[in-house]
């Protein structure tokens, strides 16, 4: 144990430190004002985000249980950034809540879990992080304490999470049985594609599919998203998903490289189902959170498409897309959170003639949705293009044709929302909604991100250089 420990584990320690500060505040009970607490936390999160850029190094700890590279540091920065934005957007909702500190403690605990998961060099560490990330998450899904739907969502979430963890553990145990190790560094040579190992691949894959809400393991998603408070939904659909994708990237191809044919076929089927079914269900939704839930399912399909290439190009494209996805999805959720906090309206039909009283917010949500749909000049276009390009590098054009046709279908339902906002008539349109300066700042950051990350190729080149 030396200074390495502090340098390498800086992101985790930083989060832990914030959690301790919050705990101390809770015990001390000195600050009564909710707004002060929120501002303080936001400030700490900002510092935490900025620290993430300084003095990152590469190395491993605890006999390879924990390791970090520049790429992993970048991934943690992305998660930090998303959490900060969500925290800014949560202001309107949390400011009247009785348990502000608890919310943040739980939230940051899940983030800590995700960091460990991303940095894990061993299946045990990975599982520890996974559980640390899942259980508090179920608690904050239920954070609208008086709403029955929230509790229902939390129960669904915890049950499906537990089930997914079981699957994953079972898979891991088989892997241990056949190879005698759980260390990521040693596994690739030992996994030769024997039948028991394939079996374990299937179970691990299923566990991931649950967590990523890939079809056919997606059924919990919509209900949980609908029941959870909007900021938590945003957290689930952006941060939690991004973290799972990051881990998936560093487990699937690196470890199971000798079983590439097997997992490619599994992934092929999953992608087709995920994109198609996500889209088809999204068409029929009226609740805007459920709508975004299904749309995010189909987005995951596209991310898997990038991963399926099994190349650096695919990994770069997936991480790049996730950054764009953070901007776009949080842009949309920011507006929804604001409207939901002030008017409690969450249906697409409520958004009819939204443009009448809220011009800027309408454009923000429209641009965010266009970015999700992959329309230029938004960054979403570039993200989707790179994913599809990576997917096409395998030469499997059946998959590409299905994906591209689904982009057209997805355009249909995104345009439905845009139509409601701009075209449809409504006798009682949503009144003028005004966010505070932090919400506005978060939305401006998202918009800037959506417009700039596409044109500036710097980001993509940077990610590519980290491979």
């Amino acid at each position, binding site marked *: 144990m030396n200074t390495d420990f502090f340098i390498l584990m800086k992101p985790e320690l930083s989060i832990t430190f914030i959690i301790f500060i919050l705990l101390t505040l809770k015990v001390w009970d000195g600050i009564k004002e909710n707004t002060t607490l929120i501002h303080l936390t936001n400030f700490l999160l900002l510092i935490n985000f900025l620290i993430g850029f300084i003095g990152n190094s590469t190395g491993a700890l605890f006999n390879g249980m924990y390791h970090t590279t520049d790429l992993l540091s970048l991934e943690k920065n992305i998660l930090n950034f998303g959490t900060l934005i969500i925290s800014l957007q949560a202001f309107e909702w949390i400011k009247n809540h009785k348990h502000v500190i608890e919310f943040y403690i739980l939230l940051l605990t899940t983030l800590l879990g995700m960091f460990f998961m991303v940095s894990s060099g061993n299946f045990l560490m990975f599982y520890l992080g996974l559980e640390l990330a899942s259980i508090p998450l179920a608690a904050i899904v239920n954070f609208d304490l008086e709403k029955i739907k929230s509790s229902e969502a939390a129960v669904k979430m915890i049950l499906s999470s537990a089930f997914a963890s079981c699957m994953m553990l079972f898979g891991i145990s088989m892997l241990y049985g056949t190879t005698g190790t759980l260390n990521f560094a040693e596994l690739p040579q030992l996994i030769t594609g024997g039948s028991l190992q394939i079996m374990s691949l299937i179970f691990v894959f299923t566990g991931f599919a649950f967590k990523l809400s890939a079809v056919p393991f997606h059924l919990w998603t919509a209900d949980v998203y609908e029941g959870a408070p909007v900021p938590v939904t945003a957290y689930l659909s952006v941060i939690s998903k991004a973290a799972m994708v990051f881990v998936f990237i560093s487990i699937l191809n690196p470890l199971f490289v000798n079983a590439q044919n097997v997992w490619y076929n599994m992934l092929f089927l999953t992608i087709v189902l995920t994109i198609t079914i996500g889209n088809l269900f999204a068409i029929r939704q009226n609740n805007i959170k459920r709508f975004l839930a299904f749309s995010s399912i189909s987005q995951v399909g596209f991310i898997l498409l990038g991963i399926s290439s099994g190349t650096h*190009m695919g990994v770069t494209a997936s991480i790049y897309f996730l950054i764009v996805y953070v901007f776009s999805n949080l842009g949309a959720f920011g507006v929804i959170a604001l409207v939901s906090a002030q008017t409690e309206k969450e249906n697409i039909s409520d958004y009819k003639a939204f443009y009448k009283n809220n011009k800027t917010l309408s454009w923000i949500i429209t641009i965010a949705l266009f970015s999700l749909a992959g329309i230029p000049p938004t960054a979403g276009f570039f993200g989707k293009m790179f994913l599809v390009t990576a997917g096409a590098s395998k*030469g499997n054009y059946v998959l590409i044709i299905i994906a591209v046709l689904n982009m057209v279908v997805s355009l249909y339902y995104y345009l439905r929302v845009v139509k409601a906002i701009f075209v449809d008539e409504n006798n009682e349109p949503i009144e003028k909604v005004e966010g505070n300066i932090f919400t506005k700042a978060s939305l401006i950051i998202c918009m800037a991100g959506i417009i700039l990350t596409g044109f500036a*190729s710097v980001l993509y080149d940077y990610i590519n250089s980290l491979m």
Partner: protein
Amino acid sequence: MTNLSILIIFPLLTTIAILFCRNTTQIKWTALLGSLIQLVLASLLMYSYYAERATGNTSQMLFEQRYSWYSALNIEYYIGVDGISVIMIMLTAFVVACGILISWKIETLTKEFFFLLLLLSVGTYGFFISLDLFTMFFFLELAVIPKYLLIAIWGSGKKEYSAMKLALMLMGGSGLVLIGLLATYFNTDIGSGVHTWDLLKIAHLHIPYETQLFIFPFLFVGFGVFTALFPFHTWVPDGHSSAPTAASMFLAGISMKLGGYGALRVATYLMPEAAQHYSWIIVLLATIAIIYGAFATLMQKDLKYINAYSSVSHCGFILLGIGMLTKTALIGAVMQMVSHGLMTALFFGAIGMIYERTHTRQIKELGGLLKTIPFLSSVFIIAGLCSLGLPGFSGFVSEMVVFMGAWQRPDAFHRIATILAAASIVVTAVYILRAAGSAIMGPIKNEHFNHLKDATWNEKIASVLLIVAILSIGLAPFWLINIISPDTQLIMENIARGAIGG
């Protein structure tokens, strides 16, 4: 004007300037001024193009600019023009300026309207000058979604349905293009596993015959959707007739040309052998579109639908020209793009202006307009005559060139296709003359028509601009042919080389 990027940057600046305008007057004048300056820039470009060619510069593309964009994927911001693109840019500048003049009276959400219209034009300019397939695709898609909003918000009739249909079909088309482009990209190995999006480089690579056969349908049908390739033409009538005037001018005038240009520049140029292999299907579909479009027009009672269906028929000539694969036919196809762009913009403009006054587009409710609004009625008739191919107007020249090119294919199949296509002109004459006869001539059918006011200054300028352009092609087609001809020559050479190589 040798810095092509200005052609994209300037309209972009105009759109941004519109965002900062305070009232309607400011917005309109900013938009108009911007589009007029853009027209001047386009003319300057054409002038410098001539000047450069006169100095003996025979390189395929002029005024090239090339910057690396996404170096890991070899994506470049690579632009340059040849004669065809110069002409298309001129066409765009003309139609956009006239569209803005004609939309002078837009009352609802003025800022958004002009913003979206100019954003569309950015996409179009970019598409015509880019030589990198990725950049080109970026601009192609940029020119789709603003149309949805333009039609859905400011349109008339069943606007929501039409807007959605248009957006989805065009996105479907560009999706097919995307598949084709990706397949092309991964089949261009320019050494050590590096691929390229560079249009000119790909043209000089030899993509294997079987691969071409796979890729070509995606590219051609994808672009074909934009240019009303039968049976993917169904968005045209609905989209055009629901759109507000300026948007239908833009749609029919320029948007549909994106497809024609792409089918020629990307599909045919890059996949010459496949183009030959599939040419009979293209000819067949084009002929069907020409005849079907003409007869469908006969049945229409709404002026906008008449022009929309006749657009299907006229765009069939573009595809016919491309499908015939002779140099003359290709020249004819490009001329038809320009001619149809101007003519249909004028036609939609005239219909829009008449509709704004009479509040009906039904032929049987109109009548005797020549007596009350002589200027607009004359514009309508001129557009109609151009559409039916009267000598002296651009329509005649371009269709004539297509037929001459088509006749160079001596076998029975191509002869029959040519004859059938030529015969459709008779049908065109019937519907145009009938529409003009009962809507413009004859007795005044409605009391309220007596009090109509004739064209205002802005409408007059717009109409005169377009008519001058049409006449200048119709009376002196050689300048247009001269500017296109070297580039179609290059495309033909690529096809010929493909035939020898394969």
